[in-house]
């Protein structure tokens, strides 16, 4: 053995054995802070644009909320769900039906909608969460698409393929959700609340428990984490946030149809999360903005928005996305632990 390796000394406090700092502002969250600043600039800047862009931006913000919800399962629990469109659609239909058929005011209708979404997530989760990885992906995709066909076949309740229209105009406090600027404001307030909530949630003990399950159940179990329970709770929370975005979107457009639940919609939500997940916990916002920008703004100029989305996804899969086994080592590590620094003492 050479002398060099024996002279390597650790710094006085053993960094590796310290508990991780339970704070959001931490090393490795630079991109999250940049995104947060960007969202604030977006919130201030967009209302100065023309109404057409404000309307598009409102929808982008609604999808950002949806993507944040979906990211809890797809990004943080590492469970590839291509079925989150189902929760978007379930929330859209329930809020529409509560207001249209139940004649409820907005706030109770929204709260009941979130309860309905949570119950649906619980039922789907109990079955789907017994599986992992590819199996989970297949089941969520199948369940979402089957719910789509159910939504289009229950003509008396949902209006079938023609969709559910005539949802009453909604007002939350001084905001009328039909108006693009008001909708943008409401969406922005909720998005910022969701962002703050996510930062707290993911750095809570539960958030750590959830991420401890990313790769190996056994290790997490040995620390007292109950895998199914933790995943189920995360699945329900994820569905509730997704449903919140979905119901807001529906109240704005006043319309819900089966395509909201479809595999295409779920695939787009999946794309929003995985395309930008390397930007950290707020990455899905960027993903949602980009994907919705493609389908709203570019889709407004050409009829090929699906094709463009496909090409973007193809290029992203080939050149942009990182493989999971690469990311476990260094890039996302600061969420869990600080890198050990080894000092070389020269003689």
């Amino acid at each position, binding site marked *: 053995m050479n002398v060099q390796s024996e002279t390597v000394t650790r710094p006085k406090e053993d960094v590796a054995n310290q508990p991780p700092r339970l704070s959001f502002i931490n090393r490795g969250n630079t991109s999250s802070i940049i995104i947060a600043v960007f969202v604030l600039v977006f919130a201030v800047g967009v209302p100065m644009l023309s109404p057409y862009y404000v309307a598009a931006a409102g929808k982008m913000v609604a999808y950002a909320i949806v993507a944040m919800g979906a990211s809890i399962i797809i990004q943080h629990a590492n469970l590839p769900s*291509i079925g989150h469109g189902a929760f978007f659609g379930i929330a859209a239909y329930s809020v529409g039906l509560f207001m249209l058929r139940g004649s409820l005011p907005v706030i109770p209708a929204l709260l009941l909608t979130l309860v309905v979404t949570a119950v649906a997530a619980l039922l789907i989760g109990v*079955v789907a969460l017994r599986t992992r990885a590819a199996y989970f992906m297949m089941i969520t995709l199948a369940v979402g698409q*089957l719910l789509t*066909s159910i939504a289009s076949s229950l003509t008396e309740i949902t209006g079938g393929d023609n969709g559910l229209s005539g949802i009453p105009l909604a007002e939350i406090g001084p905001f009328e959700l039909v108006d693009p600027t008001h909708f943008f404001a409401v969406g922005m307030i909720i998005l910022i609340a969701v962002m703050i909530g996510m930062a707290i949630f993911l750095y809570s003990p539960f958030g750590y428990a959830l991420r401890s399950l990313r790769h190996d159940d056994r290790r997490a179990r040995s620390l007292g984490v109950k895998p199914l329970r933790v995943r189920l709770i995360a699945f329900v929370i994820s569905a509730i946030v997704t449903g919140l975005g979905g119901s807001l979107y529906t109240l704005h457009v006043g319309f819900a149809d089966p395509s909201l639940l479809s595999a295409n919609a779920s695939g787009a939500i999946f794309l929003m999360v995985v395309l930008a997940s390397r930007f950290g916990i707020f990455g899905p916002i960027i993903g949602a903005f980009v994907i919705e920008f493609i389908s709203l703004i570019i889709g407004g100029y050409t009829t090929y928005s699906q094709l463009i*989305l496909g090409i973007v996804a193809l290029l992203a*899969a080939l050149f942009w996305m990182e493989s999971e086994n690469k990311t476990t080592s260094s890039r996302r590590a600061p969420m869990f632990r600080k890198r050990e620094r080894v000092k070389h003492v020269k003689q």
Partner: protein
Amino acid sequence: MNYWLTQLLNGLSFSAILYLIAIGLTLIMGVMRVVNLMHGSGYLLGAYVALTVINKTDSFLLGIAAAILVGVAVACLIFALLQRVGTDLNRQAVLTFAFVFIIADVSLKLFGGGTLQIPIPSFLQGSVHLLGISYPVYRLAMIGIVAIVAFALFMIERKTLWGALVRAVADNRQMAAGLGRNPMFIALGTFILGIVLAFMGGVLGAGVFGAFPGADIQFLVLGLVIVVLGGMGSINGSLLAAVAVGLVSTLTKAIGPSIGDMSIFVLLITVLAFRPHGLLGRVA
């Protein structure tokens, strides 16, 4: 009684097409560990390619040949792209789903939004009397062809060296490589076979069920349901599940159109609640 016999045969012919789709998914899943989300697009593409060629040349066989050629080309392309993407599930999903978007949009532009049917070749037109009912020959031929395909696949998997290699690669890729077999070639062969079977599903199925926008997702999802129900990587399980899904969906649709899809949903949830690894799946 006769009505139900007809529905039973309708169900079986639907099962036949579903089997062609699902068996490819199962093989690709088992050997390559890839969820091929563009598998349903294979149905659509196969149907449209065959339709174009048949309309041009009036020859059903040329249509089949063209569909096989395009199927092999598409399979090679996607296989090459999958090699670049590697083993990450999310990247594979994004890559294959990208093709769903691309194929759906391009074929919508080229073939429109209506339901197109492949003209049935003259020697398969008409119907035969069978057990007191009159039933279309083409649907019977579908059941027959797929039964032969299923039997052939079963025999290849069990009795031939190629089948043994496929099983070896599915079980342990490194070990198979260690025995001097290149797993890449076996994976490529399986992938081509799977995609071509999906294309054949489109060629055979479009004569009855038609090719229309949304058929890709519909058949993908039914295929996924069958793979999940049958058990991951189980060829016999896929056959069993394909028959079950085809019969259940057709028979319940005969009772009431709106409960058709719900019944598959209920079937899926019930089976998974009691057997999370599928009917014939092995516990990993």
